[in-house]
């Protein structure tokens, strides 16, 4: 109970800060739009190609936009050393991790929802009949991505080039998640949808999520310690 109320306090703090500044969401959305724009000019895709490359492109956008957003989550705590302030309060350090991870998860999901809508409108990409499954897949994929990303953002915030360090550490480590989520998305949007394939990859995603949520919770204290 104590743990969760403290986690909620940290989560609300991050949400409130973001509500004031809107830094993270704005940068993620602008980045997403830029990728869509570039995709259009680089490939001038027809509807068949959109169907083929759409899932991969969407996730590339989600991932790079997400890296951009998650980098802020601990970089923002360095001004006035507020992270040490959190560490000094009588909270389990894992609740700092969890609060920030949930904040990142919410930001990412919100940005992804908007980017997905824009993508669907701009490329006439029919997502609506399959939107429920897409939401489930996106949640599973983003959970694994955000939980590893939050830990690695804390690692990267201590380095001299955190903007570079985060992607370099992150992309190889979450590759299983990326692979599964792209394949699940592709199966979901295939004509006709290939549900058994989709379920196969969603199960794998759920398994990775378990690993990738537990591992950071176990190691986060070591990252914070001074």
């Amino acid at each position, binding site marked *: 109970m104590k743990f969760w109320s403290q986690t909620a306090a940290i989560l609300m703090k991050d949400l409130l800060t973001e509500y004031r500044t809107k830094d993270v969401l704005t940068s993620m959305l602008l980045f997403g739009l830029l990728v869509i724009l570039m995709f259009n000019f680089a490939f001038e895709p027809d509807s068949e190609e959109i169907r083929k490359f759409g899932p991969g492109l969407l996730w590339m956008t989600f991932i790079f936009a997400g890296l951009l957003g998650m980098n802020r989550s601990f970089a923002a705590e360095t001004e006035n050393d507020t992270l*040490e302030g959190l560490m000094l*309060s009588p909270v389990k350090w894992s609740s700092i991790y969890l609060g920030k991870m949930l904040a990142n998860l919410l930001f990412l999901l919100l940005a992804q929802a908007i980017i997905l809508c824009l993508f669907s409108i701009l490329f006439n990409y029919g997502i609506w009949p399959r939107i429920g499954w897409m939401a489930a897949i996106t949640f599973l994929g983003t959970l694994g991505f955000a939980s590893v990303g939050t830990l690695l953002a804390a690692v990267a915030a201590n380095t001299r080039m955190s903007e570079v360090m985060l992607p370099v550490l992150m992309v190889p480590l979450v590759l299983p998640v990326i692979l599964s989520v792209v394949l699940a998305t592709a199966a979901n949007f295939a004509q006709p949808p290939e549900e058994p394939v989709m379920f196969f990859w969603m199960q794998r995603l759920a398994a990775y999520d378990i690993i990738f949520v537990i591992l950071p919770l176990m190691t986060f204290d070591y990252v914070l310690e001074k």
Partner: protein
Amino acid sequence: MTADAAVVVENAEKWFGLNPALANVSLRVHPGEFVALLGRNGAGKSTLLRVVARLVKPNRGRVRIWGVDVARDPERGRERIGLVAHQTYLYPGLTARENLRLHARLHRLEGAGERVAAALTEAGLNLSADRPVRGFSRGMQQRLAIARATLHGPELVLLDEPFTGLDLEAAELLSERLRQWAAAGRTIVMATHNLEQGLEGVTRWVLLDRGRIVTEWTGDSTAVRSRYRQFLKGAPPGAQGRRT
């Protein structure tokens, strides 16, 4: 036997490779004492404070706060600690009130609303309570930082070079607060190399050099001041023979 001491540090050591930050430090602070940690930069004062607050895990040794082993239950130890450092620990994007409220929620304080309001009044920040901290002057931020660190009424106040970067007004306020805390019987441990400010109530002086406690002095600050100057000027123990 140790429950009556506020802080007990037993043989604390912190090193990495061939770099000792703390070497076999033992310190016992009684409730109501005001201990000043003196020493050069890098002597281990800051590390010692952080070992007490369990931000740093010592390689060896034990720390207990009112009998609570901080290695085993760091949260219960930290409940009774307030740390005032030269960093303010304030979120610039949040208002003064929100900063304090966050702190109150993390400490799970009862009657948080009134306590925050009272702390804001005491810090003289009533009029700016709902403005983001980013627009505050240095002095205002420092007042808020002090209010934040002591909002939960810590019995043990740790201070890490608190006068660094303060303007005159804020420094006066901090000195005033230190007097109040000392008079109220709070236990205070302050790391400093500033011998001009905030030292009126100090009951004991602990001198650190290269991660070791070199000596302890009691007595009033004027006498200690000259002895400390001598220490700083003179070669540290062990190197005297080489001076001509």
